[in-house]
């Protein structure tokens, strides 16, 4: 059984975690801080050993299965009996306490539920699966809690009990896999525009409107349009916490992961590309529309835009996910781990909604009635 990778403090062998505030790996016990590069260098042999162990286990499992079948045993019943539950799961050993960890096959970074040590799952980021880039966390768990509290403010229809009785059930800092698409949108957009002139002729106001057919063609390059590559994370949440500041992007290293969870991608780039293309198309039309000037009205008539595809990169971006449950319904909030932008739909207090509605509608109706009847 392969072991997961455990980042230990060189000083006290305690577990390390990546601290966004300092940009360094910090020891949970002694508080020592270490640069990412230093720990990377120290961990390289251990990572290689873990990956080799992982590959050996994969090969061994397949050999055993083949041998079992060669001996004449019908193993189809066994596989179907375990299949539903075992499918998509992997088992690892915690190097700290020896416990067996069951993880989903896409899990790339986790923590041991028994000893709490942070761990990186070997093999998930090896070879072609290795991400190109990583955007380290800048904001911590407390920042996520504060952001949620601020999110509640000013929401007139938020049920009071939701805020008062609400306890965040889970806060997870996750490196979410993203595809970053670069390319150039090219195409043509057609608009109709009008210019009007008014003059007085006798007792009439005569408005003359000139109509124009307008065409714009061109190209617009895009850099790293992100699309969520994990099926477990809602795409709308990930879209809503954009944008990320790519100035902080670094070459990928697992050294940024201790203390956070991570999944590898399970939605291929081909499936995600369409969403990026649609977004670029809309932006291109808007950009071409912005060049149409000197008209009083401009209406789009049609467009033909295509994306000349460029570089696709695999990146891990930092997201805090906060779960809560209220009246039997789950509420998910997502916060950009770099910028602090938090999104999440909130429940609406129906009584308060209709009370507000009545409080606005009735006085307006009363005043209006009085004015119309008395004047």
């Amino acid at each position, binding site marked *: 059984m392969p072991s997961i990778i455990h980042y230990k403090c060189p000083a006290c062998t305690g577990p390390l975690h990546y601290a966004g505030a300092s940009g360094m790996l910090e020891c949970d016990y002694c508080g020592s801080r270490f640069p990412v590069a230093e720990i990377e260098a120290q961990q390289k042999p251990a990572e290689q050993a873990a990956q080799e162990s992982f590959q050996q286990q994969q090969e061994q499992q397949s050999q055993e299965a083949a041998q079992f079948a060669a001996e004449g045993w019908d193993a189809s019943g066994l596989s179907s009996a375990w299949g539903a539950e075992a499918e998509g799961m992997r088992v690892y050993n915690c190097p700290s306490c020896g416990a067996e960890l069951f993880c989903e096959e896409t899990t790339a970074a986790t923590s041991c539920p028994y000893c709490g040590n942070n761990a990186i799952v070997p093999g998930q980021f090896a070879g072609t699966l290795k991400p190109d880039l990583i955007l380290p966390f800048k904001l911590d768990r407390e920042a996520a809690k504060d952001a949620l509290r601020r999110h509640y403010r000013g929401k007139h229809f938020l049920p009071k009990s939701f805020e008062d009785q609400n306890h965040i059930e889970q806060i997870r800092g996750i490196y979410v896999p993203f595809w970053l698409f670069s390319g150039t949108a090219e195409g043509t957009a057609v608009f109709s525009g009008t210019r009007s002139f008014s003059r007085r002729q006798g*007792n009439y106001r*005569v408005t003359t409107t000139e109509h124009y057919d307008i065409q714009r*063609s061109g190209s617009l390059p*895009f850099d790293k349009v992100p699309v969520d590559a994990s099926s477990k994370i809602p795409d709308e949440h990930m879209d809503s916490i954009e944008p990320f500041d790519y100035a902080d992007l670094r070459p990928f290293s697992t050294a940024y992961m201790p203390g956070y969870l991570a999944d590898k991608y399970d939605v291929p780039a081909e499936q995600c590309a369409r969403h990026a293309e649609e977004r670029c198309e809309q932006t291109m039309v808007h950009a071409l529309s912005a060049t149409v000037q000197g008209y009083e009205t401009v209406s789009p008539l049609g467009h033909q835009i295509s994306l000349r595809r460029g570089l696709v990169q695999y990146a891990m971006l930092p997201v805090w996910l906060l779960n809560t449950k209220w009246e039997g319904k789950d509420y998910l909030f997502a916060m950009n781990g770099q910028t602090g932008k938090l*999104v999440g739909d909130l429940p609406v207090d129906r009584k308060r909604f209709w009370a507000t509605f009545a409080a606005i509608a009735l006085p*307006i109706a009363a005043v209006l009635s009085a004015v*119309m009847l008395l004047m």
Partner: protein
Amino acid sequence: MKLRLLSLLLSLALLACLSPAALASVESVTVTQVGELEEEAEVWAAEDADTAWEPEVSDWAAEEADGTVQAVYYYDSVGLLTAQQRAELEAHSAAIAERYGFGVYVVVLEDYRTYDRWSVENAAEVVYRSLDLGVGTARSGLMLLLSMDDRDYDLCAYGYGHTAFTDYGKNQLARVFLDDFRYDDWFEGFRDYQDEAEEMLRLANAGSPVDDPYAGYNGYSGTRSQRDPGAVIGFSLLIGCVVALIACMVMRSKSRSVKSARSAGTYAIPEGLYLAESLDRFSHVTEQRVRIETERSGGGHGGGTSISSGGFSHSSGKF
């Protein structure tokens, strides 16, 4: 006698000066006798001093003075009707004028632009003044002007015509003759016009001029009708509910912050747009004409009569 005939000719000459082409297009006015003119002309001038309407020696003034002039109610430069049909219309208008003291006229022109190049309404006012139409000191009358070139028409009222023929009334009246004109049934259209105008005059004399039944005020008379309290409260509630719903939906939208991204503007390279082609091609021109409301008699909501700065009220369109 010769002097009075000369005066009439002078009047027609003035009309011709305003529009040389019109001299040939408007049929000559038939006058059998001419009376004394000066007193009537002074009233006419004083009434319209603000619009620089010069007093004119006219057949109407003569008729008012001694009652012996044969007035003309139908002017036709195109020749739409036979002599018999014209006579029938003249007789009907004369009967209306005698009964109500109000002139109901028809003027048919080749092209109204010979009088005013901009609008048929202005042309109608010029014609009405030039022909000295109208009855009595108030010059009360209603004139249907047809311009055959572009099939424009204008219903032009003056004096008591503002009371008897509200904007709504004029529109109703137009519907009556437009049905006939659509099929070039001119005589039937003119007869319907006279019949309907007479009926509206009768109603106006009875104190109930035809006006918009849904107007909050009873048009030109200026008397306020009683509003239905139920309808007012219902309307107010509706407005209140719409405003409240908009406000509540805006507040509710603050609870929704998750949505799919539609654009990628953040990731577009700044100043990266390369414009390969930029083509602006003129297509066509449209024109919209909206009447300028200069005065609303009765001050009502939707009813009443809109009077232009020239003192006329109109309803115009195509037939």
